């Protein structure tokens, strides 16, 4: 990969007791922020999530000083933003918004080169950079460079918006619901592409969304905010799901947070169950003996490359002769190590034999995964029993109140139930 990856990576971002109070509560006034402190390490994605009016967008805009805080400090790489020239500050921070805000009167190439142009780069270098970035976000420069924004689809415009924000290779990016205006299928694709991009770019990203699923998917860290601009919890997504810090967080995350948590773990996180295998042509009697020593009631028949062919039930294995392919009765879904536990579980529920066969890149068997193993993994990471109660309560609350303005009342911290 040439280009951005070689350049500066992210800077740290610190919120130090940041507040924004408004005198008026007129309609359309952005959400206030109250005594917000958190630290985002360089190169991480921090997602600010919460109901509308919780101050997440206000917090984001205070970083590039589109909104000035009324209290506290925001530090980029340890330097207080309040002391910096606001124009120079903004040119050094990538900014992506939901409505994209492309300049309708400029071509895609000119749009992408906006900040380099403001910084006075030579024209040739601006052009080169624009092409490089269009390629990076998956748009062929030859086809898109000279078009106008209105000639692009919503998803294409969002990509251009990301390319434009990356143009001057800023260490920090602010993204305000960047994928909120496109349909779910395109959103999913843009999210995945962006995560892949981020692996190379390693920018420090503040990302605003109201969608908890997007927060869990995109965030290395998630800041759950509550109306009035209070920070309810600041933690990695797994921790938010496993141990919500308050009733509000539990409710916001949703009653299905157990299932959501499954999408954070992958098969590679599990210790696989060894599979008892036998090759085609092996002696049946020997295979039968080996399979009997294992409690799993099936033998997995494999080929020369240890690629699975199918299951043979233990009591169906002949007592003499050799194993043949035709003995295999059924097959299980093949799962690779990158599959999320949520997807793995879903595949298992459809299968005849309740075990998924985990294979490596060549298709060779690595081991088995069962629903029990996934459930066990959930119990290990779930923390303690008290959250079972929260889940029940969350279901009731979700049904009755469905995240209305009742969220305005500060949530009480959950007391651990006596065990």
């Amino acid at each position, binding site marked *: 990969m040439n280009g951005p990856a070689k350049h500066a990576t992210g800077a740290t971002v610190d919120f130090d007791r940041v507040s924004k109070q408004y005198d008026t509560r007129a309609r359309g006034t952005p959400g206030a922020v109250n005594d917000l402190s958190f630290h985002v390490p360089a190169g991480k994605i921090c997602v600010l999530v919460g109901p509308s009016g919780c101050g997440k967008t206000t917090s984001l805009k205070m970083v*590039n000083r*589109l909104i000035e805080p009324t209290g506290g400090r925001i530090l980029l790489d340890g330097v207080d933003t309040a002391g910096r020239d606001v*124009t*120079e*500050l*903004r*040119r050094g*921070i990538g*900014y992506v*918004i*939901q*409505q*994209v*805000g*492309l*300049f*309708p*009167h*400029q*071509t895609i190439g000119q749009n992408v080169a*906006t*900040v380099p142009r*403001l910084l006075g780069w030579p024209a040739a270098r601006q052009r080169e950079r624009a092409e490089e970035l269009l390629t990076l976000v998956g748009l062929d420069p030859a086809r898109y460079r000279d*078009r*106008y*924004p*209105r*000639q*692009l*689809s*919503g*998803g*294409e415009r969002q990509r251009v918006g990301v390319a*434009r924000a990356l143009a001057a290779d800023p260490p920090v990016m*602010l993204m305000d619901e960047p994928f909120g205006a*496109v349909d779910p*299928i*395109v959103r999913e*694709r*843009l999210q995945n592409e962006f995560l892949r991009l981020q692996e190379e770019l390693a920018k420090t990203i503040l990302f605003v969304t109201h969608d908890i699923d997007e927060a869990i998917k995109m965030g290395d860290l998630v800041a759950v905010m509550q109306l009035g601009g209070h920070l309810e919890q600041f933690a990695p997504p797994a921790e938010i799901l496993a141990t919500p810090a308050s009733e509000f967080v539990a409710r916001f995350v949703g009653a299905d947070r157990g299932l959501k948590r499954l999408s954070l773990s992958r098969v590679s996180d599990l210790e696989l169950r060894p599979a008892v295998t036998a090759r085609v042509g092996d002696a049946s009697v020997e295979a039968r003996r080996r399979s009997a020593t294992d409690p799993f009631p099936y033998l997995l028949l494999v080929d020369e490359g240890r690629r699975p062919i199918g299951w043979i039930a233990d009591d169906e294995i002949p007592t003499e002769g050799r194993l043949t392919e035709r003995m295999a009765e059924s097959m299980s879904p093949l799962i690779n190590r990158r599959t999320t536990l949520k997807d793995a579980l879903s595949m298992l529920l459809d299968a005849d034999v309740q075990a998924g066969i985990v294979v490596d890149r060549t298709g060779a068997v690595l081991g088995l995964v069962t629903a029990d193993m996934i459930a066990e993994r959930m119990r290990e990471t779930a923390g303690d029993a008290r959250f079972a109660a929260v889940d029940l309560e969350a279901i009731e609350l979700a049904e009755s109140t469905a995240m209305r303005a009742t969220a305005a009342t500060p949530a009480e911290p959950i007391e651990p139930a006596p065990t």
Partner: protein
Amino acid sequence: MIDWGWVADHLDKVAFRTVQHLYLAALAVAVGFAISFVLGVIAVRWRPFNLAATAIAGLVFTIPSLALFAALVPITGLSILTAEVPLVLYTLVILLRNVVAGLQAAPPDVREAADGMGFRAAGRLWSVELPLALPLMIAGLRIATVSTIGLVTITAVLGQALGGLGFFIYEGMNRYFATEILVGAIPTILLSLLADRAFVWLQARVTPWAQRSRLPAEATA
């Protein structure tokens, strides 16, 4: 009906009056636009000013043109100024409104993106708000020019030194001479049509981005 012999004898005069007509109209529109632009830039930043300026411009527009020319004669005499002041004033009501609307045409997300990327106020005005104001500004210029070309004929009441093609209309009416009236009226109408088309052409030239897409927008994400 038309005395072609008279027309042939007076071609040089028709040419002179046509040029004069265009000059009087262009001068009024140019000055009117310059004033509207300055007022408009102030108006988009300061709402009370916008309301006041728009109201005054609207009020001026209600004054009958003949009365306004007459009212100015004691002050500025029968000079070109007496012709131009009302012409300019009448352009203001159209141009000011369109300049203001044009400068407000940049969508909020575009402004926010510009601010977020580090445009200074002047840079944003010049590189973002002005280009996006062009369609409405040119539309305003088009209407103002067409209406001014019509109004210039009335300046003939201020004497033979003024009036453009209106000179023929005015003189023809005094002499009950239909040919001369038509020699004034028809070229005036042609000038208006020509100006109208010219601005349509200009609009398409300077705002290619606002034209209907020549490339099919592709449905791929």
